[in-house]
């Protein structure tokens, strides 16, 4: 009985207020081009790209303005036509200023596309080459270059590609909208990824709070016997790679290993769309799809914006922020980064901008740990956050490592839950940083 099939899931997790209703029914709106874009040359994990343009140079939308430097790197394109104003260190949504190319828009609106390709006749090498050329990075948050994910080491046997349609972060609805509006492109992108990897089986994992998306995607895979739509339980962090693989395939990624060690490659819904656009339309990654939401923004929306658009332009376009705005976050409320400078631009992997009020944050006073064990109960990786945080605080890094601090995915479930409001995941992050420091010290010694 398919109708009564129970949604699959993992151990632990939490149910934060979703607030998806703010934007889940608003179709994507295309925001007009901004007057100026700021394009960071590092929008991915790995080495920053090398700028190819000089101050004063005219560029056309779609042109490559920075080339990849090394294996883990991707090209950067300009998302609008205009003149290079300067190349300098600029504010960045990550918090630390980064080198960026600033381009002032001109009147021209035409986009320079790559030649369109036929998905059916492409070889795996051709798919990878196009994905790299288009500068595609993972849309799940980490912004790992996608072509590398499609180039696994030869000794790893991959048998599954899973698309991550969980969107377990509260507020965010862009993957939901993608599934409702572009289901066929998503499946096309998935099939391209499967072909590039030489994999037979595909799956799309969707949380059961998106019944419409599940329906639409199920229709889209009707004629695809090898692709399955899997309903997973609505629970944070269901969209974490390890949690999704556990739910969909019941495989556990061992500590320190990657999904490809259990034969799986995971791609985000947005990444699948980008792959399809790059191959079929020949469009490089010039836009970012994002949800602008929160009780502190006047008009919450799902938007398609040009990569490099400053946050200020977007907030203004959404009717501005309310007086009770307390925190502005890029990404989701569980793992996003708080912002202080709205001049910072949107990047390829930006998935949301949230304007939060105190009402939504529910901060309260920190008290000593009461040993209640709630953090232990919710940790999806079965760690003991309270102990890890204490060891990090005391700089007992050996002890923390013994308890598996490096396995932490920093989902923030522990700190979200802690009734004593101890910044558990924040301490653990610090501890992980120290683990790396000590390792590097050892190497250099």
């Amino acid at each position, binding site marked *: 009985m398919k109708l009564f099939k129970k949604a699959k899931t993992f151990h632990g997790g939490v149910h934060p207020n979703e607030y998806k209703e703010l934007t889940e029914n608003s179709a994507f709106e295309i925001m007009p081009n901004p007057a100026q874009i700021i394009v960071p040359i590092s929008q991915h994990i790995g080495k920053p790209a090398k700028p190819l343009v000089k101050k004063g140079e005219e560029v056309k939308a779609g042109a490559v303005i920075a080339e990849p430097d090394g294996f883990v790197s991707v090209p950067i394109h300009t998302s609008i036509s205009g003149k290079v104003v300067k190349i300098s260190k600029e504010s960045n949504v990550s918090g630390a200023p980064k080198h960026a190319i600033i381009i002032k828009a001109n009147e021209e609106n035409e986009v320079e596309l790559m030649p369109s390709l036929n998905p059916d006749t492409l070889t795996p090498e051709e798919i990878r080459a196009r994905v790299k050329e288009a500068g595609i990075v993972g849309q799940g948050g980490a912004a790992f270059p996608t072509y590398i994910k499609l180039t696994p080491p030869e000794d790893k046997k991959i048998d599954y590609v899973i698309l991550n349609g969980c969107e377990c972060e509260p507020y965010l609805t862009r993957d939901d909208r993608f599934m409702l509006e572009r289901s066929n492109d998503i499946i096309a992108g998935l099939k391209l990824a499967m072909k590039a990897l030489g994999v037979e089986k595909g799956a799309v994992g969707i949380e059961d709070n998106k019944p419409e998306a599940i329906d639409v995607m199920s229709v889209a895979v009707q004629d695809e016997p090898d692709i399955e739509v899997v309903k997973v339980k609505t629970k944070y962090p269901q969209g974490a790679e390890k949690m999704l693989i556990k739910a969909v395939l019941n495989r556990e990624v061992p500590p320190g290993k990657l999904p490809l060690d259990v034969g799986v490659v995971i791609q985000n819904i947005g990444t699948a769309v980008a792959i399809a656009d790059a191959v079929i339309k020949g469009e490089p990654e010039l836009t970012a799809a994002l949800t602008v939401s929160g009780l502190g923004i006047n008009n919450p929306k799902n938007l398609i914006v040009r990569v490099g658009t400053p946050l200020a332009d977007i907030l203004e376009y959404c009717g501005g922020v309310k007086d009770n705005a307390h925190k502005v976050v890029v990404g989701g409320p569980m793992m996003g980064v708080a912002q202080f400078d709205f001049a910072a631009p949107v990047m390829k992997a930006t998935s949301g901008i949230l304007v939060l009020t105190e009402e939504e944050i529910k901060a309260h006073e920190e008290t000593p740990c009461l040993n209640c064990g709630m953090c232990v109960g919710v940790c999806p990786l079965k760690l003991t956050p309270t102990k890890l945080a204490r060891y990090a605080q005391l700089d007992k890094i050996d002890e923390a490592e013994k308890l598996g601090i490096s*396995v932490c995915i920093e989902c923030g479930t522990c700190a979200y839950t802690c009734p004593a409001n101890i910044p558990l995941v924040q301490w653990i992050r610090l501890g992980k940083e120290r683990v790396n420091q000590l390792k590097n010290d050892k190497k250099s010694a």
Partner: protein
Amino acid sequence: MATVTANPTYKLELTSSPHVHSRWSTKQAMWMVVFALVPCIVSAILFFGIYQLTIIAVSVGFAVGTEAAIKYVRKRKITLNDGSALITGLLLALILPPNFNLAFVALGSIVAIALGKEIFGGLGYNIFNPALVGRAFLQASFPVQMTTWEQPNYAVDSVTSATPLASFKFDAVGTELNTMLIGNIGGSLGETSTIAILLGGLFLIAIGIVNYRIPLAMVIGVILFGGVFWLVDPAAYQNPLFHLLGGGFMFGALFMATDWVSSPLQSKGMWIYGFGIALVLILIRLFGGLPEGVMYAILFMNAFVPLINRYTQPTVFGGAK
């Protein structure tokens, strides 16, 4: 409406993720426990008279006062509004005999906070349940007064003023189980009415403040360990149901053993801890010199919590089983 500029002129909070928080705070959780104890307070008044409120008032007053005084002397922030001292005072009062000497109540309350909690560094650092430390002190200091039980208000003549556990142990007199369920029996203030205790305790389990594993392990443990003896010799040993309803078992299982600070962190540890309490309890009740053993059983297992935590560390996700 604030206008959007590149550099916001208004204040924005800047902290690292997560940016949202669950509804629970320490303070809120503590007040929920106080709320859950209301049925027990009502049953105390109902069965033993309105005077019992003075015992509660003295116990709470001295607990709160002691905590404030110690924080003041140690020049620490006074954290009374977290409600933890209030709970210790309340819990201590509810496990004392009716009409207990008020001076002794005050003494027990001071010991509970000073030696049970603050001496270890305050909330979160104590090894033993503070209220039980207070009661253990009183039991050792005033053994006669601690075992003198007032007859409940609605007692039928045939019920002696002793607790059902003591009647059975020393006089081989049984007590009707339904009387024990309602609470019209001799016993400590808040411990006699199983119905009132369940009302509050199940509420705490339902809202997620009390983990069901500890009380469940204790119940299963008592049925198991008590059941074995009962099956061997039903005349000499009471049936397990009697153990569940008698003495401070239910109160201990739902409000004492589940104290966050002095109970284990991991699920597996909670089961071990619960079974351990049940085993020690049955041994004391059946073979010890005292008719009741919930207090000592819990204190005994409290001491093992750090050890239990150490050996029940779960395997990390994806790790070797």
